[in-house]
């Protein structure tokens, strides 16, 4: 019997600051490798896809494999536009925070394909079904859903600036949006809590016999939260139309995915234990992400139950404006990420197929920049967290209950409002 020394095993990333980025643990599967099972498949028939990786877009810009969603050039260009817009907008938010005009900032740099592809795929499947009840339960890193679903960039910026145009009246940190008409649930600052709510939403849809779909979102780090479990258990038991999206961007603030248990089994594999259909997808491949979401959405709408999707991607930026990643990972790590950059990859594909030339891309980028800058300028004119009119203090009391109870009236009056 081989006795190992007894030690507390604390997983460590392959490279720390000063060392060479090392992504050798990541198996980059070939674009034509993953099977595309029927949407009516039993959950266990998808389990090989939990350890594989759905990829469509090859490094050279060509596409291949069973998962090609067959999008038109127009659709692909729309995806590109949304990703670029998201990136530029979040860059502006970042600057606003640096200038002291926003309390906080957080970006999805390098993982824009995730939210944009998912939002577009759900939306495309929606007409005639959703009855306005499809709902994303996002984290702070899925602003791309709002961009893709056509939310006003101006309104998004007002929220970030906590100015008088903020429709949340200063209640929430920047980027914790709530936009019901875009199928975007109010983002909790508490990690994990919303997954089971998405399941509950989907259960409600089933109770009302509606073909809606709910999409839970979590980072890989927050899969460690217990709410991940209740979401999986309830999804397994009641088989509602929910898609549980795990965005594995390799980092949770300073801790790498191994601290969430990612080194022993891919997060997608968590689904197997619950008898839930499971996909693992190249998160920087817009087309693969679109196809995976489309598959899960179709499956859900057809009444075949929940799917867990792991999106393998990389958090290229710092965690947030309060974070400095050079303290815990090699400074140039993002550049070595084997799955590349989602915007570059889709661009290369469009160039390769001739759907666009460089001038088209430049024009598109400039259009995005103009739209973003106009929205930001307009919002800034309304004020920032430090300047301009604030929401009235009375707003603080207004939304605690539907009707303000006597003690809150008293407290508000005591404050002079």
């Amino acid at each position, binding site marked *: 019997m081989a006795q190992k020394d007894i030690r507390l095993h604390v997983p460590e990333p392959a490279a720390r600051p000063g060392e060479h980025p090392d992504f050798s643990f990541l198996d980059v599967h070939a674009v034509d490798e993953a099977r595309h099972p029927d949407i009516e498949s039993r959950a266990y028939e998808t389990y090989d896809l939990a350890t594989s990786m759905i990829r469509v877009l090859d490094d050279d810009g060509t596409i291949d494999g069973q998962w090609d969603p067959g999008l038109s050039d127009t659709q692909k260009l729309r995806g590109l536009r949304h990703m670029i817009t998201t990136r530029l907008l979040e860059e502006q938010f970042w600057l606003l925070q640096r200038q002291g005009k926003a309390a906080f900032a957080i970006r999805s740099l390098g993982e824009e394909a995730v939210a944009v592809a998912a939002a577009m795929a759900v939306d495309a499947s929606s007409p005639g079904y959703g009855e306005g009840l499809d709902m994303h339960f996002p984290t702070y890193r899925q602003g791309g859903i709002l961009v893709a679903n056509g939310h006003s960039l101006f309104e998004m910026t007002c929220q970030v600036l906590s100015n008088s145009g903020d429709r949340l009246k200063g209640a929430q940190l920047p980027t914790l949006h709530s936009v019901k008409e875009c199928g975007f649930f109010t983002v909790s600052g508490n990690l994990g809590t919303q997954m089971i*709510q998405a399941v509950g939403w989907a259960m409600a849809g089933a109770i009302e016999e509606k073909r809606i779909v709910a999409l839970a979102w979590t980072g890989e780090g927050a899969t460690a939260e217990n709410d991940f479990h209740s979401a999986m258990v309830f999804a397994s038991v009641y088989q509602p139309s929910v898609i549980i999206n795990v965005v594995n961007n390799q980092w949770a603030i300073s801790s790498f995915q191994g601290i969430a248990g990612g080194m022993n089994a891919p997060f997608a594999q968590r689904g197997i234990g619950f008898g839930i259909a499971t996909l693992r997808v190249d998160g920087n491949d817009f087309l693969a992400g679109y196809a995976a979401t489309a598959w899960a959405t179709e499956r859900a709408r057809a009444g075949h139950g929940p799917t867990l999707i792991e999106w393998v991607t990389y958090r290229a930026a710092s965690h947030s404006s309060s974070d400095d990643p050079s303290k815990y990972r090699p400074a140039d790590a993002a550049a070595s990420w084997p799955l590349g950059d989602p915007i570059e990859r889709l661009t290369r594909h469009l160039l390769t197929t001739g759907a666009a030339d460089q001038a088209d891309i430049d024009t598109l980028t400039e259009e995005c920049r103009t739209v973003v800058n106009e929205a930001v300028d307009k919002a800034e004119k309304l004020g920032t967290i430090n300047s301009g009119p604030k929401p009235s203090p009375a707003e603080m009391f207004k939304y605690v209950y539907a009707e303000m109870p006597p003690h809150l009236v008293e407290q508000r009056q005591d404050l002079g409002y």
Partner: protein
Amino acid sequence: MATMIEAIRDALAVMMARDDRVVSFGEDAGYFGGVFRCTEGLQQQFGMHRSFDTPISESGIVGAAVGMAAYGLRPVAEIQFADYMYPGYDQIVSEAARLRSRSAGEFTAPLVIRMPVGGGIRGGQTHSQSPEALFTHVAGLKTVIPSNPVDAKGLLIASIEDPDPVIFLEPKRLYNGPFDGHHDRPVRPWSRHPLGEVPEGYYSVPLGQATVTRRGEAVTVLAYGTLVHVAEEAAASSGIDAEIIDLRTLLPLDTATIVESVKRTGRCVVVHEATRTSGFGAELSAQVQERCFDHLEAPITRVTGFDTPYPVGLEWVYFPGPDRVVRAMKDILEY
């Protein structure tokens, strides 16, 4: 005539019949009808999709209810014992209570979470707790606790209709009959109590309104749940002319009724079964003191559970029975 269990079941049935959006679920609460049988028959009457069993996951129960409520349903979730609500506390505090405020009214959580509270059934430390203060501290929640079948039905209906999340506490020792604290005397059924006379069909008792169960001039006793009956017994056995207020809703609190009474009596005893420190009695004491300072002739006194777990072997030492209430009233009358 109805027990409190029947009254609660009746409220659920009335509301499920009136409103398709009302659904009921919890551990053992579907097919079997709940370990206290409060949801018995609902599955047969309304179908599996309106009344169902859940996994043993209080966090999941509340979290799913939040999602359903935000969607537009009116979920009524049962937590088997209040002692088991802690795994769901995050979903209550961080989510149900905050959806409305953090979305400026865009998403709301009109749900009811029912849970049996209190001791006196030989349940020991994990079937006897009274965690109301953990809810009253949380902005965005309402907290309700009936003391009899008539109120239980009316308050539960009002809670289901309420647009905000309501914590509905059911004093389990009252399920089958009023209980005055004398555990050694024969049990009295609700059928021999006027408040067991539950009206049929729909009616509601508005949230936020206390009721005076005994008029008196000597001292005001603030009570709720099981302790209302204990206070009544204390008044009866001691002959002290106490005014007993059954708060019924802890939040929003009916301060008007309280203040009117204490200003009149000049004396106040606050009673509850929960542990003393930071119990809801502290809030009551603070408010009475703030609002009636000039009228107080003696210190406001708290009669509460001790700051210990509720031991099964010493249950009746722990329980704040009529003797302790009498002693407190006497102390401040003689002050």
